[in-house]
């Protein structure tokens, strides 16, 4: 796959200017538009690279492969592909939620591409694993989430078509996605959801080789403060910054709190 194919496949946007490049990897659910409140605060000092994972936002959904994107490795490969396509080196990767872990995987696979990693509301594992780890959720909770996703993003026409056609759903059957924020094909969304919520990246944390900054929301239903602390404790060179906030999207709700810390972290 050549450079322009990757840039188009992942809907890569390359803006801002500066010696340091910040690569923004969005989390589960939406697309690179999630960063729109934060990146304007950084664009004067940094080169800003944003992208959509295959299947999200305005990426090329025809490039989606259930096999590839059933694990976080597939998404990590998207990050590596984007960096290589732009010939980036020593970037600072900013990953939200699950992308903190896909970014970590990418940094282990291709360490030369990154210099530092900023994790916004990370969770290495959403499932509880008592007695040592409490990701916050039981399997039944996450199955309920998958069920809700199916009901909310059923995409009626696409969902019914196989019933009419009598064919098993497959990768051929890629819906024409609307450009709307957060809209996505239900098959793709479920694949991403399963990869996100049923992965356990805890064993990878000690393998991190880059300085890491964790932004932790003080009240986050998805990634509690104890989870953020777990990440900080397991990564060899990590610090944590707890932001007084409610919710899982600090970059949307508290961009002004994140921007100065992120700028300082990226430049020092």
């Amino acid at each position: 796959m050549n450079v322009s194919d990757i840039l188009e496949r992942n809907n890569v946007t390359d803006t801002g200017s500066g010696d340091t490049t910040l690569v923004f990897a969005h989390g589960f659910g939406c697309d690179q538009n999630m960063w729109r409140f934060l990146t304007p605060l950084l664009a004067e000092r940094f080169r800003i690279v944003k992208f959509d994972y295959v299947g999200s936002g305005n990426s090329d959904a025809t490039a989606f492969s259930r096999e590839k994107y059933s694990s976080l490795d597939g998404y990590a490969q998207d990050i590596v592909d984007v960096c290589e396509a732009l010939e980036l080196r020593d970037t600072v990767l900013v990953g939200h939620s699950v992308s903190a872990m896909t970014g970590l995987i990418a940094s282990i696979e291709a360490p030369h591409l990154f210099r530092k990693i900023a994790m916004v509301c990370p969770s290495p594992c959403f499932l509880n694993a008592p007695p040592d780890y409490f990701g916050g959720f039981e399997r039944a909770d996450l199955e309920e989430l998958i069920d809700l996703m199916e009901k909310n993003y059923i995409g009626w026409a696409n969902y019914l078509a196989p019933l009419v056609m009598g064919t098993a759903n497959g990768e051929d059957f890629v819906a024409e996605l609307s450009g709307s924020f957060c809209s996505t094909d239900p098959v793709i969304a479920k694949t991403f959801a399963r990869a996100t919520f049923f992965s356990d990246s805890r064993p990878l944390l000690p393998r991190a080789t880059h300085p890491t900054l964790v932004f932790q929301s003080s009240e986050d239903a998805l990634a509690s403060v104890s989870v953020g602390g777990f990440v900080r404790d397991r990564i060899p060179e990590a610090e944590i910054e707890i932001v007084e906030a409610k919710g899982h999207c600090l970059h949307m709700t508290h961009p002004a709190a994140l921007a100065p810390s992120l700028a300082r972290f990226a430049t020092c």
Partner: protein
Amino acid sequence: MLDGVARERDFSVDDLPCGCLVTAPDRTITYANRYFRDDLGWNPDDLVGKNVEVLLTRGSRIFCDSYVFPLLMQEGGCKETQLTCRTPDGERIPVIANTKLLPDGRVTWTVFSAENRNKLLDELAEARRLSDEKACEAQAANRIKSAFLASMSHDLRTPLNAILGFGEVLSLGIFGKLANPKQAEYVQHIRESGAHLLELITDLLDLSGIETDKPSLDPEMLPVRDIVRDIAKQFEVSSSFKKHDVQVRLRLDADRIYSEERVLRRIMNNLLSNSAKYAPQSSLIDVEVRRVLNGVEVSVIDDGPGFPQGREETMRNPFVREKASDDGLGIGLAIVDTLARQHGGEMRLSNEPGRGARVTVCFPDPRRPGVGRKAAAQKAGSPARKRALRDPGRDQMAS
């Protein structure tokens, strides 16, 4: 304030048949109407001051964090979101929520019970799951059937070749002349029956091969007049035509046809064999080749009984015959149908007024507007081709 405005119109927000909720920017509930007490068991006064997450199951909280709140930030609202509320007793109640972001950062919510909708969605999801499962089973069964046909046909053909070969040796008198005319007649019967059986087995092999391998075509422009004349001549001297004194009449109004010669011959053979089975004594079979808007059509018309009224379409299915006593397996037309589709064309079955059956095969010409791309896609085995090919289990025909 909400109550005050509503009371001026002689009703209260508490009277509305839906839950109304207001949350502060930090997601704290600042107002909840009586619906939450009547339908969800919460005391509205107790809800005020609590995080809205108290009303939601854990799965719904993730959904709100992943979709609803980002959408509110991005687009100012989020409509028709299915969530699951929980009662103070832990009961789960499916609801539909609409949310709207106010300029001051507060969020207004309306919540409706969605228990019936939820059941329908569950049933739909189950129907979809069963449909996918059945489709997979059907495809697997069809693959097994095709493999069985191929294997069985191959195993039958091997001993049959011995029967035909030794029959020919006897008939030619290589090891001595037969003792009397009766023996010669019976050996001839053996050879004819063997040849007929070989034809049937070859058809089976062809059908299973087409279904399992779906060979791509390598079409080119062919001299259709020469090929059709050649095939017609072969048929006229064949025993089945001579026995019933059937003749072929050609009407050739096209010079070139876009096909592969092997495939075109197979199609013509099957069409003429099919007609020959039903053509009455001393009758004519017409073969028409004519240009149409998107290519060339080949039709074969006979004076037989035609297709049963209203069942024309089913006669394209494999192993379907007009009568159980008819010769053959009923797969000749099924093969034609599949081959026609591999051309990007089609086979049409109808009855000719005043005569018998008319079978028409359309061969699209890629040089005609709108044809080339489709044919090319089919040749390349693209998804378009996969969709264009019928499910092998449903590709069929009668002969």
